């Protein structure tokens, strides 16, 4: 039977039969039935006022008010950016609040885990630290972070983390964001009916607004999460539905914020809760994550990931999920009917997000531990209610997670010599051709995981080091690409570097807000020397082959504004206006050295990425990439074999001789 489920994930495909049996349609079925609106998908549907919606197709090149296609497409695009920036930044805002409450001792169960990082952030934010208590510093950092949202004038503090040249470019272009909320509000205002009616000008606000995300809300979300929950270091973990356990209480934490999930992790591990689970006939409590929440707790605790965006309903189909706790973003409303069909208890927790038909247990930091306990208890209580046959696909892949930019620096020299010199050296020498951030969502309009994995496979084979976040990080984990052993699929030069450090060719940098880590890494690479002076000088690309959310558009836009050549897949949402296509590519390239392009064909997307990397190499005067130049490192395998020879046979003065002896022994 050829599956209707358009997915590369065998665990997903395996459960299609269950869904059919239960007459339970999922996202894959709905996508097959409901086609995307052909007008809206090119960006030319304007529904900003009561005179419309105006659909600017065919001979219609102006709306009722006279708005041109370019204006309409630019407005729609900018509103998507504003939506994405709001989501990430609100996440950052909540963490700033949690930090303040923690500092005051008002947040139950929270503490400052990474004092070192607090000091570093305090320094950037110009919060005095000398002779002050950690709590005082933390409160000030939290307040300063919070003030960034309402700030009306000046510039966001974090902009100064960018290379100097980049800051100048922003100032010159007039897109240095003043305050996070202000930029979102202005984006909404300017795209309101009858305000800004020049596509290029409208899109300038999209850029400024997006920077308030990448170098504002998201970056603060990452930093404060590190302060509160610890800066990630590499650890072992697992990916895919096979992490669910038939004989344990399976509790899936799904959504985006780490605040509640951290507490759930803490509570689930207590002997009290484990004992309670046993009293209900389960062998224990098994936590698994989904979407970005998963990546937050994976990076810090190794909590395994059950899957990415398109797997959420499928997880419920296993019949093994006793509770699914969700907070905000990327949660499908379809979870309600699916969980009702099975026994899964769906719990909403955010004061901002309820779902009709789901149980709502509202979360607040003051009672965080108690609420987490109640949630875990509810999950355990639901264990005996399993009714359907439990079918857990035996599909699971081990992986390494937990890379942060702090660790990237550490791993290239240790405590005393950590820097980005080895990476820069490798790029300069051509061992590494370039760096790609392959990130972003799943999208039911294209086969699940297929595009992102094709891109990643091809890039690493071409000596491009890949960093990943979000749903793409999940996918990389599912197919084994987050394992160091996968360096065998990398090009020779990249393999040498992976081998020297002991890393996979694809590095999981965390959740979507952690794309800000990529910005920090790129800034550090640019300032390390030898590769120009700015992010825009680097042989680097950003790609989101299967994007779907507004957040992705916000990320893509702030990448472009930061000097990254950015390529999105699936569908060109600005294709309705060639003028806007031109602005996003050519004009932005001239002004910012970064672009935003939509290339649905994966091969074309890869070619464009490699061509850009090679162009940047040439501009930097670096040697052209040559796949055959390197690869003479290594020899571990031979050494292992030599050790299996009897000592008198180990003639080490000649590789030829000892290789022959090893061969003889075999």
């Amino acid at each position: 039977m050829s599956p209707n489920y358009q997915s590369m994930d065998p665990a997903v495909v395996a459960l299609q039969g269950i869904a059919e049996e239960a007459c339970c349609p999922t996202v894959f079925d709905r996508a097959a039935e409901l086609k995307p609106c052909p007008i809206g998908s090119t960006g030319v549907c304007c529904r900003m006022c009561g005179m419309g919606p105006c659909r600017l197709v065919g001979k219609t090149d102006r709306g009722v008010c006279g708005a041109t296609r370019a204006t309409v497409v630019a407005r729609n695009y900018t509103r998507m950016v504003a939506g994405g920036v709001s989501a990430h930044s609100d996440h950052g805002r909540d963490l700033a609040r949690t930090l303040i409450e923690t500092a005051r001792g008002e947040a139950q169960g929270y503490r400052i885990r990474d004092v070192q990082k607090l000091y570093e952030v305090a320094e950037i934010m110009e919060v005095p630290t000398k002779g002050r208590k950690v709590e005082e510093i933390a409160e000030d950092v939290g307040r300063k972070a919070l003030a960034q949202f309402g700030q009306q004038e000046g510039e966001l503090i974090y902009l100064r983390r960018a290379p100097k040249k980049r800051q100048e470019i922003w100032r010159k272009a007039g897109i240095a964001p003043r305050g996070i909320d202000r930029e979102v509000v202005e984006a909404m205002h300017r795209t309101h009916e009858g305000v800004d009616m020049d596509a290029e000008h409208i899109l300038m606000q999209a850029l400024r607004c997006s920077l308030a995300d990448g170098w504002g809300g998201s970056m603060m979300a990452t930093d404060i999460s590190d302060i509160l929950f610890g800066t990630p270091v590499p650890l072992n973990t697992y990916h895919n539905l096979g992490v669910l356990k038939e004989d344990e209480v399976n509790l899936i934490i799904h959504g985006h914020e780490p605040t509640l999930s951290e507490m759930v992790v803490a509570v689930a591990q207590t002997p009290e809760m484990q004992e309670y689970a046993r009293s209900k006939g389960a062998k224990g409590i098994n936590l698994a994550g989904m979407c970005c929440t998963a990546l937050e707790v994976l990076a810090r605790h190794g909590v395994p990931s059950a899957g990415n965006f398109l797997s959420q309903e499928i997880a419920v189909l296993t019949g093994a999920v006793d509770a699914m706790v969700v907070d905000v973003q990327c949660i499908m409303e379809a979870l309600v009917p699916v969980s009702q069909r099975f026994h899964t208890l769906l719990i909403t927790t955010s004061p901002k997000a309820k779902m009709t038909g789901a149980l709502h247990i509202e979360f607040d930091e003051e009672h965080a531990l108690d609420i987490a306990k109640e949630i875990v208890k509810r999950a355990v209580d639901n264990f005996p209610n399993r009714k359907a046959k439990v079918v857990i696909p035996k599909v699971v892949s081990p992986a390494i997670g937990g890379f942060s930019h702090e660790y990237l620096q550490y791993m290239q020299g240790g405590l005393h010599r950590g820097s980005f010199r080895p990476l820069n050296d490798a790029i300069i020498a051509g061992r590494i051709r370039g760096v790609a951030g392959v990130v972003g969502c799943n999208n039911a309009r294209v086969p699940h995981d297929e595009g992102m994995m094709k891109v990643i496979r091809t890039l690493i084979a071409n000596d491009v080091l890949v960093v990943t976040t979000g749903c793409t990080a999940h996918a990389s984990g599912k197919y084994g690409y987050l394992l160091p052993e996968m360096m065998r699929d990398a090009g020779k030069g990249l393999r040498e570097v992976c081998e020297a450090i002991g890393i996979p060719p694809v590095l999981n940098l965390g959740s979507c807000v952690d794309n800000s880590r990529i910005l920090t890494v790129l800034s550090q690479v640019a300032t390390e020397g030898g590769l120009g002076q700015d992010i825009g000088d680097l042989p680097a690309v950003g790609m989101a082959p299967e994007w779907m959310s507004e957040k992705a558009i916000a990320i893509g836009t702030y990448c472009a504004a930061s000097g990254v050549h950015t390529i999105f897949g699936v569908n060109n949402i600005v294709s309705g206006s060639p003028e806007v296509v031109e602005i996003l590519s050519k004009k932005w390239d001239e002004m910012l050295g970064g672009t935003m392009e939509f290339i649905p064909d994966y091969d074309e997307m890869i070619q464009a990425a490699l061509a850009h990397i090679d162009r940047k190499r040439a501009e930097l005067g670096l040697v052209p990439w040559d796949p055959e130049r390197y690869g003479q490192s290594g020899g571990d395998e031979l050494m292992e074999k030599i050790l299996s020879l009897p000592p008198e046979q180990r003639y080490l003065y000649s590789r030829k001789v000892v290789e022959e002896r090893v061969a003889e022994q075999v």
Partner: protein
Amino acid sequence: MSRYIATRALRGANMVVREADQLLKQAIAELGPDAKVEFTNTAYFLPVIYGFTGRQVTKLADLEPVLEEAKKLLHPVPKDKNYLPYLGETLDAGVASLLAMEAIEGIRFAKGEEPMPFNWAGKGMVGGSFTSPEFEGAGAGDGRLNGPIDDIQLRAWGIQLVDGRMPGFAAIVGCAKSNEVAVEIVRQLQQRNILVFLSGNVNGRSIIHQLHEEGVEMGYDTYIVPFGLDTMSAIYALGFATRSALTFGGMKGGQAREILLYNKYRVFAFVLALGEIDDLKYAAAAGAISYGFPTIADTVIPQILPTGITSYEHVISMPFDDIEGENDLERAKRLVQRAIEVRGVKIKITEVPIPVPYGSAFEGERVRRADMRIEFGGKNSRCFEYLRMRNMDEIEDHKIVIDGPGFEEVEEGGSMDMGILVEVAGRKMQEDFEPVLERQIHYFINGASGVQHIGQRDITWIRISKAAAQKGFNLKHLGEILYARFHADFGAIVDKVQVTIITDPKKVAEMLEVARKAYDYRNRRLADLTDEAVDTFYSCTLCQSFAPNHVCVVTPERLGLCGAYNWLDCKASYEINPTGPNQPIPKGTCLDPVKGYFTGPNEFVKQHSNGTVEQVALYSIMENPMTACGCFECIMMVIPEANGVMIVSREDPSMTPAGMTFSTLAGMAGGGLQTPGVMGIGKYYITSRKFISADGGLKRVVWMSSILKQQMREELQKAAEREGVPDLLDKIADETICTDVDGLLPWLEEKGHPALMMDPIF
């Protein structure tokens, strides 16, 4: 790292820290916590510990917190599968090993077990004090090895190490394949002035035993220092390195990162691991890598070739039998050569070993026919010079071949054919640099007293005086000069230099053909080097120390105003020093091809002139002209009455039609300010196609210092022809014709100077 090396180093680190811990406990039980711990005659306590932690260890109890810190740097060995990254962890564990190793040596000193006893048995001794004179019981005759180097010797050697007179040190650990090999390795290092530190053993046998058996003298005087017979004593090499940074780098104890980086950039040391490598050696080697010191092994081990912690490769395996060579001695030589390459040790030759005086003072010296012993080139013979790039493995450093007879048989005053073939290799060498380097042969050879060099390429003309020949100067010495000077002046891009002097007429003819093909190729390439053909210009901000707002934009058709840097030189300079004063400027978009406005240079100049210069027109003197520092070869200024420009040379003290002399004009032209109508330039810019091309080009020149006309007559004539006025030079006035406008105008009228017929310059 490779996982294998990481595993073994981490295992070794865990082991040695544990061992140190046990030894310390025993020693404290035996001697008490206050028992003195000190190395021989040093003010830096236990220097590695002091450097990394800032702790001043003077007694056993002081070592306890050190070992606690070491333990924090330890990590478990990587798993067989799904392992976590290991490089940072291994390097940390390497540092932990160094702390533990030095602690162990400290404990041994407390117990009186260091320096290690050694039976010198009457040979291989170095007389007098072997190590520190104050150390009781020291000296080879007293049956001890050296142990750590004392501060006095550190000062004597260290300063030479960090200022480059001494190229580096080799920490040899283990035992060579044979005594013969051991001796040859050490001799090869000695020949290059490289310090040799000996320690360690393989199955109980050390290179110290080998050298001793062969009667090699060891000691400070011979640059060979036997530290000890076990791996622990290798720590003294790193103690020496650490103290170099403390003493000469002005660092303080505890500034670990700064000390390590100082060593990476200033102290050219490497580890030569001879014989099988055990866990502890791997751990110590990991510690050395943090200093930027790579390891070269003569056995089969995994290689770590990517760069970064060290400047070049981290770990190299050169299984001894697999090294190409006729015999073991040759293999030993190659091994040392490779080790030097891997660390990037630059052999610096300060003295050119030839029998005649050498220096730039002799550059202008002439050898007249009457004084001439022999000449190459000129009327009666052929002579050429040709420099080409080769791969590192294709040539041998310091190989000088004379292919054909010497000049001894040629009668006095006679001539013979000669070809000079210089072959260079280097990691940073590029084909583009060949002509730049080849052009240096002229200066290098001219530096020898009694040797004259004229011309270049296949019109080279070299004379050797009778006096020089009498002192013993021969063809080989030409090779010595070139070898020494290329290393000294271009060490950053050249790692190996091989010279072949060809005198066999048939071979001269053959090689000349090869050389001519190369000249031809370069000509065509140089001709292609127009501003349009490249997409990058270069900056020069060398002079910002005194003209902080000045930026030179150097293009293929406009060289730097000082005349010293053309586009290729800047490119080479950037390659040599990527963060230096010559940075690539992407042209960006061409805004005006006539005046020469490009977005790239505009942005760059604005940024690097601190905002004082908004934009620059590369091809105009009238509009946004390029600024100048003060080093210009010439100043040009508009003479409105003549509808043209005048150019005065730095060498011309006379009054000019502008009413000012060079030195008065210099005040207007320099300082990084844009003054339309005035510009400082390099003299070869005058002959460029792009010479104020926006304002009419060479035809605008109405007056020019006569010295320029003389110096560049040929080039100027060609340029005049190109501009369609072949007799232009005769129409340009100079200071011998007039020094004021009143004299200039009638003269121009009389000659019919084209500027008078051109569009108004304003």
